[in-house]
């Protein structure tokens, strides 16, 4: 629908459309390749009118919006569109750091049904970071027109996370998406994500340092397999973020300790 009221004039300086003062039960991230209809899904779920348009890289603002399901408040974060999480660009780094260190309760990865293969690259990388993922195969109407058929059940079985087919522009499949996201966020729907198997030498290296990482950051908080991979590659951006994270975590523990002393 192009430039909207909310994306013109002085409003362009407002990074988020709603202030998060009210209570939020779950935080949901919205990731995906550019031009897969992420903003359309965002608008459809939140009822906001963010600028949508058919060109890659359009979403430059980080937008936040809320929707309610079964009386629970979901805060939806629209992340910039990226093709991968290798942190080659600012958008990729922002998206990756958000998924890894801000820990949303669930992540929706929007993929384009008409070019699934390229989109799966991002899905596989997201699965390495977080297991609480719902894949939203969008633009199924477009795919149908091009006579492309995506076997949704087979894809879900293969990826080990729920997959929902949608045509967000016409509001098709969104109810199911909302329901599935709730189930993943509250833990009633357990996922068993597919991990890409790497070359033996890399797999062995991961096995060697993974236990130490588990000791350092704890098993619950991070996907230590992915962290091991990044540390093995000496990814500076991850290292910086990790140090920041450890510092933050430590401050919290000291504060609690302080209270106990008093």
């Amino acid at each position, binding site marked *: *629908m*192009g*430039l*909207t*009221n909310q994306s*013109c*004039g*002085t409003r*362009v*300086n407002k990074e988020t459309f709603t202030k998060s003062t009210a209570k939020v039960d779950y935080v949901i991230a919205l990731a995906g390749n*550019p*031009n897969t209809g992420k903003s359309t899904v965002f608008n459809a779920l939140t009822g906001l*009118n963010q*600028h*949508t*348009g*058919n*060109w*890659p*890289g*359009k979403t*430059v*603002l980080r937008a936040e919006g809320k929707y309610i399901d079964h009386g629970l408040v979901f805060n939806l974060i629209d992340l910039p569109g990226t093709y991968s999480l*290798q942190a080659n660009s*600012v958008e990729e780094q922002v998206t990756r750091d958000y998924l890894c260190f801000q820990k949303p309760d669930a992540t929706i990865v929007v993929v384009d049904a*008409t070019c*699934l*293969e390229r989109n*799966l*690259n991002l899905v*596989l990388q997201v699965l390495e970071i977080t297991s609480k993922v719902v894949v939203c195969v969008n633009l199924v109407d*477009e795919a149908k027109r*091009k*006579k*492309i*058929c*995506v*076997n949704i059940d087979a*894809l879900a079985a293969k*990826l080990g996370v729920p997959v929902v087919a949608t045509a967000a522009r016409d509001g098709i499949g969104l109810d199911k998406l909302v329901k599935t996201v709730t189930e993943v966020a509250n833990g009633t729907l357990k996922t068993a994500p*597919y991990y890409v198997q*790497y*070359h033996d*030498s*890399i797999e062995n*290296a991961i096995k*060697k*340092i993974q236990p*130490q990482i588990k*000791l*350092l950051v704890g098993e619950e908080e991070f996907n230590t397999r992915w962290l091991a991979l990044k*540390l*093995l*590659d*000496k990814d500076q951006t991850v290292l910086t973020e990790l*140090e920041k994270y*450890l*510092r933050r975590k*430590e*401050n919290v523990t000291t504060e609690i300790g302080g209270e106990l002393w008093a």
Partner: protein
Amino acid sequence: MGMSQSMRTGLNSILSDVDKINPHGTLGINDSVVSSIYYAAESIANEVVSQKEKPKTDWDKKLDDILTSRVFGFPSMLLLLGVIFWLTVAGANVPSAMIADVLFWGQDRLTDLCNYLHAPAWFHGFFVEGIYRCLAWVISVMLPPMAIFFPCFTLLEDLGYLPRVAFNLDRLFKKAGAHGKQALTMSMGFGCNAAGIVACRIIESPRERMIAMLTNNFVPCNGRFPTLIALAGVLVFGMGSTFGATAIVVGIILLGIAVTLAVSWTLSKTLLKGVPSSFTLELPPYRKPQIGKIIVRSIFDRTLFVLGRAICVAAPAGAVTWLLANIYVGDLSVLAYCAQWLNPFAQAIGLDGFILMAFILGLPANEIVLPILIMSYLATGSMTELDSIEDLYNLFVVQHGWTWLTAVCMMLFSLLHFPCGTTLWTIRKESGSLKWTLLAALMPLGIACAICFLVAQSVRALGWV
């Protein structure tokens, strides 16, 4: 605040192990990982995706062969631009006149009401001739062109045409030392320069981003289109041709793009030196635009937006203009005094004092420049009713001695002058620097003055007016 000893040693021991396991990156992790992921994605896709039959004709490719070809790319772009503006120019006249009729009928009724209540003259002047009239002008002149232009522009955006524009213009922007994606941010500028400035975030290199931000306002935003369209109407008045007016507006836009490229080139050779970075631009598939939704959203959103801005900006501007025109110092009103003071300079660049004053008072929003000018003229002239291009022609040409040169210079100045207040504020916020913001205001102003000066002086020297 540092990390505690235990955590620091934990991390360090991991890193020293990493050095042992993967000395100097011998495992080649990055490349190996990327290729494994690609391979996995490919094999999963092969398992779950099936395409029963290839569509007989690949329309996307056929369209792209024309719209992005070396030969037809630019002509088709011009044609589309031409069609959109012809629709806007031709389509806006009738609703403009209708809205003006209704609103100025309303003004007469308000005047009757004031007379009936024996309201003081200043009350009638301030509220009816100041605030109400300015609002009426903004709404009747600005609203119809936007209501037509916006759905058309959005249609192209939804279809996926903008990346094709970027593709076509990429070579030119490269030559200018700027980023190819600047074509996209420039296109957003047609909608709103402030939105265009924010869109510059898609450009990664800070140098090229700054170039894109500094040159964004050389494409007219939706606040300036109606001004340009109305002036083009005055310029071809009497010939009665909407094609002529369309050609002028398209010409002005092409000039804007040319100036964008020229200024980008100059900046990349002087203040912001460097080589353009390369990038991959994905041409997304064409998608069927949702016509109904576009029309509803553009009209409602834009209508509300324009009305909101009209009330916020035009009403006070109308009030200020009325006050300036009616507070007298000696024999002259403050407005006339300022205009007289600006006049020698304004004449040198082909304008007059009132026009320059209107641009200055119009800083908060470009929409109100023309209404302010009309109000200032009306306040000093004898005419009180104005509801068609014909009246506008009479006011400008007959009463205030405009020549075609005045109209041309005002269009040029409107195209090139400083960005509106909102845009400047956005540049300040996005660049984080007052210095660059100042440059973003002064550089276009300087260029506008220089070009108008050159045009006006050459035309006069050649004796064409």
